[in-house]
């Protein structure tokens, strides 16, 4: 509003003297013509009158000089318009310059033009737009960084088991070339490496997904019975090779939960993977999914392996450790897997609890809310 008022005032200020001058000039011109026409007649009469009064004849005529008045008045108008619009133009110029500088500096520079008029508002709008662009760019950069870190970590972490696997294969080849008979157990370490590599890549992908903050978009009803069956199925071949008995039980009617199916499956898979991998020969792993009170589910993975001491359990499920830190602390161990499990359960608002099983091994519990499609919303405990 203020800007419009100012421009209107400036226009009025500029128009007033112009109108005055034009009017004046036209009047003066008409007067001059009239005077010219009456000149002879009036001259004679005035001269006669002047003669009678005894005064100078020049006093009888008014002085009219239109061009001499017009020029200074035009100059005054011009100057007044310039003066009135000057501050506005200066602020617009400053804003333009600052916006240009801001664009050059990746929207880092702030706009200093202020004011309660439209220019001030425009400056504010530019600042808001700049802020939005900056946050978008930051997000993009963060995503790119996560992706690059993921690629680097994956490359680094996969290279190690891959090297071990190549070593195993080279040994097999040499032994086969010497005519030795390869027994099944000697191939097991190579299978372990391949299996480990697969879970590593799954976990690194899960970590990248968690760090990019994307999973919220993938909240869908997930059939937990099927998740358990698939996760058990993934590790069953390796468990068999290790002579670890891996079994599971699920309720007859499938239990649903709302979440990201890939992340949930990976979370469950990691717990089973650890229970199998750190078990002994002829050990057992049981995976139990059940309904519990208050519309909740309880998923338990129990083993009769060596278990984990209490202080290490706390460290493994530590809440604020990011994937990377967990990796470097416990490379190749259960660190990354349990860390992913812990973060996935937290993301879904579930609980993860590690304790010593009655069997002396490890018992991992995941508790969460059952999703009931009939009432359209998850149960609240």
């Amino acid at each position, binding site marked *: 509003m203020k800007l419009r008022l100012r421009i209107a005032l400036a226009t009025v200020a500029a128009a007033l003297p112009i109108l005055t001058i034009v009017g004046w000039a036209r009047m003066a011109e008409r007067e001059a013509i009239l005077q010219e026409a009456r000149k002879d007649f009036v001259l004679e009469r005035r001269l006669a009158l002047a003669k009678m009064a005894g005064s100078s004849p020049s006093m009888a005529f008014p002085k009219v000089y239109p061009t001499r008045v017009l020029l200074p008045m035009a100059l005054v108008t011009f100057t007044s318009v310039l003066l009135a619009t000057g501050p506005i133009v200066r602020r617009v110029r400053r804003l333009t310059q600052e916006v240009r500088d801001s664009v050059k500096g990746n929207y880092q520079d702030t706009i200093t033009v202020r004011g309660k008029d439209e220019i001030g508002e425009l400056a504010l709008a530019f600042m808001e737009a700049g802020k939005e662009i900056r946050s978008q760019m930051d997000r993009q950069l963060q995503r790119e960084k996560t992706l690059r870190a993921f690629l680097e970590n994956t490359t680094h972490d996969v290279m190690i088991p891959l090297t071990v696997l190549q070593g195993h294969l080279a040994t097999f080849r040499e032994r086969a070339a010497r005519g030795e008979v390869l027994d099944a157990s000697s191939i097991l370490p190579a299978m372990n490496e391949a299996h480990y590599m697969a879970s590593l890549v799954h976990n690194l992908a899960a970590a990248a997904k968690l760090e990019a903050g994307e999973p919220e978009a993938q909240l869908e009803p997930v059939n937990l019975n099927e998740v358990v069956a*698939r996760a058990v199925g993934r590790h069953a*071949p390796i468990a*068999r090779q290790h002579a670890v008995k891996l*079994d*599971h*039980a699920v309720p*007859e009617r499938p239990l649903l939960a709302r979440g990201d199916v890939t992340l949930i499956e990976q979370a469950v898979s990691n717990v089973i993977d650890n229970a199998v991998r750190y078990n002994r020969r002829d050990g057992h792993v*049981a995976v139990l999914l*059940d309904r519990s009170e208050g519309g909740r589910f309880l998923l338990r993975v129990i083993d009769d392996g060596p278990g984990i001491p209490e202080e290490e359990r706390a460290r493994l499920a530590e809440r604020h450790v990011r994937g990377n830190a967990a990796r470097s602390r416990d490379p190749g161990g259960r660190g990354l897997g349990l860390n992913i499990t812990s973060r996935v359960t937290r993301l879904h608002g579930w609980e993860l609890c590690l304790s010593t099983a009655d069997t002396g091994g490890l018992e991992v519990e995941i508790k969460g809310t059952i999703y009931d499609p009939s009432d359209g919303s998850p149960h609240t405990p």
Partner: protein
Amino acid sequence: MALPILLVEDDRNLGAQVVEHLQKTGFHTIWWTEGKVLTPADAAGVRLFILDLMLPGTYGMDMLKDLRAFSDVPVLILSARNDSVDKVRALKLGADDYLTKPFWPEELIERVRARLRRPNMQLEGGLEAGPVRIDLANRVVSVGEKCVELTRVEFDLLVALARRAEAAVTRRWLVENVLDPDRDGTERTLDVHVSRLRKKLGQESLIETVWGIGYRLRPGAGS
């Protein structure tokens, strides 16, 4: 002869391996190396589809959509992309199950078997588990030609396990749903009932003890 399994997988090495493992297990398999528009005739001659999602030609997801318009043949999806969007979409389009690469051959075979497994051997008003026949209406159990006398709890226990043959059932569930709550309903009592049931059926390995869980009826393991 049973209908073949149709594998649609563009990777030559992986496709050849999958075919080899399926054939070795006894599943006759046809292999397409690229996606095609499916016709009802294609679907009618197949007992299970194994479908890769990333295919040249017709995209796997489109094949699934087309297929579901005229057929409910089971579909197992093979996916290299460990992406929830794809899986959720495939399941919504009517896929029965999916398997994420990499997988062990055993895992694939197990999943194929699970898809082809018939739901329980349901007879007229009864159940069959290996040599054991259960007449639900008359509450009579026979092994081969011989009738077996069972108590109420033993009969209910056998039915509970036979209904979910091949699946492990927890001790807790059996205690809560089979044992008489007014009497001594503990897991110890349950174990005693199971051991008596095994003896009466004369099929020791038919009912397996599952570590940390409970019991499982394995029709194939008996006799």
